């Protein structure tokens, strides 16, 4: 394997740079390894295309930013998340097992949706390779000078983006994207039910109870804001707006909107 600045292991480049450059060098190696390019013969485009598509598909599956796997990137549970299916649903264990069953079903659904997503990645990779080969055939193959290789890379990115854009705009992909997020979120909420049970067992407030308290506080703040506004509202109506300074100083009405926090204040803090 050819050494690159990213294979020495001693560098401290950020992961994003490392990943992008490693992928770039991998592509260049694929370009350079074309049998036809080495012998100046008619290129074996189909073999070349399948190599490119395979590499590309692998990257698509692993890159968190490349599509619907964003749910997993945020720490939502993915297919790889361990989920105990629970005890055998008999006797006293029957009720908890029902929760586990629901989570298990969601996990299965998530796996199925990710399988569908993988099929889209495969289609995008194939389409990208086909577009790229068509462009290469039109230009007569790869030029392995530095500028030629960089131009080839730009072409590859254009083809990949075009293939990606044509797939991810389709109705079935958009639906799948939403289903993946919805299922991952539902699974997260199922897991939280278990955490809530544990919280109750320890006498701690659950998420729902904390939310209920927050709602009460918000309601009280809103009411307080309304009462304060009513108590301080002047009798006279405001004059029409204008972009000019007021001629005389006068008391300004408090805002009519509700919920202004009592913590609102003018502050003077450290400058940056």
């Amino acid at each position: 394997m050819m050494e690159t600045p990213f294979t020495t292991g001693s560098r401290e480049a950020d992961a994003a740079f490392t990943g992008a450059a490693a992928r770039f060098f991998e592509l260049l190696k694929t370009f350079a390894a074309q049998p036809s390019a080495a012998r100046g013969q008619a290129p074996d485009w189909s073999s070349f295309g399948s190599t490119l598509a395979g590499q590309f598909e692998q990257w698509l599956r692993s890159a968190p930013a490349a599509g619907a796997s964003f749910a997993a990137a945020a720490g939502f549970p993915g297919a790889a998340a361990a989920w105990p299916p629970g005890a055998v649903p008999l006797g006293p264990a029957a009720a908890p097992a029902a929760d586990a069953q629901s989570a298990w079903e969601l996990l299965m659904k998530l796996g199925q949706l990710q399988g569908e997503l993988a099929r889209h990645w495969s289609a995008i990779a194939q389409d990208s390779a086909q577009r790229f080969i068509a462009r290469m055939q039109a230009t007569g193959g790869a030029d392995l000078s530095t500028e030629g290789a960089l131009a080839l890379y730009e072409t590859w990115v254009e083809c990949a983006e075009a293939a990606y854009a044509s797939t991810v705009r389709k109705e079935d992909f958009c639906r799948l994207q939403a289903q993946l997020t919805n299922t991952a979120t539902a699974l997260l909420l199922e897991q939280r039910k278990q955490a809530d049970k544990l919280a109750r067992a320890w006498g701690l407030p659950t998420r729902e109870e904390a939310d209920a308290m927050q709602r009460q506080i918000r309601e009280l703040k809103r009411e307080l804001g309304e009462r304060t506004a009513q108590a301080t509202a002047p009798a006279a109506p405001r004059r029409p707006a204008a972009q000019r300074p007021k001629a005389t100083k006068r008391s300004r009405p408090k805002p009519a909107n509700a919920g202004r926090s009592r913590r609102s204040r003018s502050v003077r803090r450290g400058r940056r």
Partner: protein
Amino acid sequence: MSDPGADAGRLFVDLGSRVAETLARLRLARDVRVGCTERRAVWSDQKTTLYEYLPERRAGAAAARTGSASKSAARRKGRPLLVCFALVNRPYILDLQPDTSLIRRLVDAGFTVYLVDWGDPDDGDRLRDLNDYLEQGLGGCVRHILEAHGLEALDLLGVCQGGVFSLCYTALHPRRIANLVTLTTAVDFQTPEDLLSRWVRGLDTGLLERAGNVPGELLNALFLSLMPFRLTQQKYVRLLTGRADQRAVEDFVRMERWIFDSPPQAAAALTQFVRWFYQENRLIHGTLELGGRAVDLKSVRAPLLNLYARADHIVPPAACACLGRYVGSRDYTACAIDTGHIGMYVSRKAREEIPERIISWLKARGGQLRPHP
């Protein structure tokens, strides 16, 4: 005839050396600073902070002022311009570095520039909704500035999602806004080119809201996945192989820091935004209500400058261009700029064309711009 093996060897040596040079510069650029214009916090409410940006000559003296002195000083300052940025990114992109800072240009033009910084919502903010952001947050900032300057109305510049908030606020409080500028602001959230809109239309917002605040990394991954090869691969390869000098590397690192420095999103506000704007397109259908009040864009009668990007992959131009059809402003100017979404804030266009357009448009619409003493 060239030897393909030798060509490949030279290629890897050359590219490897370019990459090594850029990596060395990147290591030197690790500690670059973001934000360049002196500013101070003048008001806050919960996580929201209102900053005032200071002209260079006044910056040194500002720290010593008292509150009442500050208020009387505010009345002597230039015309106030409030900048309302999006919730989904940090506003320092508008003041990233001196040569591209929109805020610095506005300050230099004589405006007293204020900026709403929404801060980072925590778990206690998960129920904070759009009306809270609009009335307590943006509304609180507007009221503070009007009082400090002794004015009845101010100029408002809304950016991206902050532009949507600005439109809603102006519709609800038309007398408080003298002139409105929107930058990359979507109005129609269901245009055919809008990939983000297509993706989120099937989301179960009830489930999402129950799941709690949404981490910034999640939204960031979503934005990157709109064009994953350009945004997670090509731009790095271009930098690494392009023989960028130290300054270009530092510019890149500042941008990179901003892109990946995304705040979390309050669950209630985000899900309302997705449901009401993206899924139901309420703003243009006239069905949006905030805090029990209808948001009617026809109530926006202030002079309006609408700037948007022709190559915007996040807010497509068609989503912005239609604004004039829905507002009640007789004085409406729309202008498409030849750049992308981020380019509106940091590109050469951002450096030259955009500030100039905003400043000249505002100057032409009343109010004395007094130079800073």
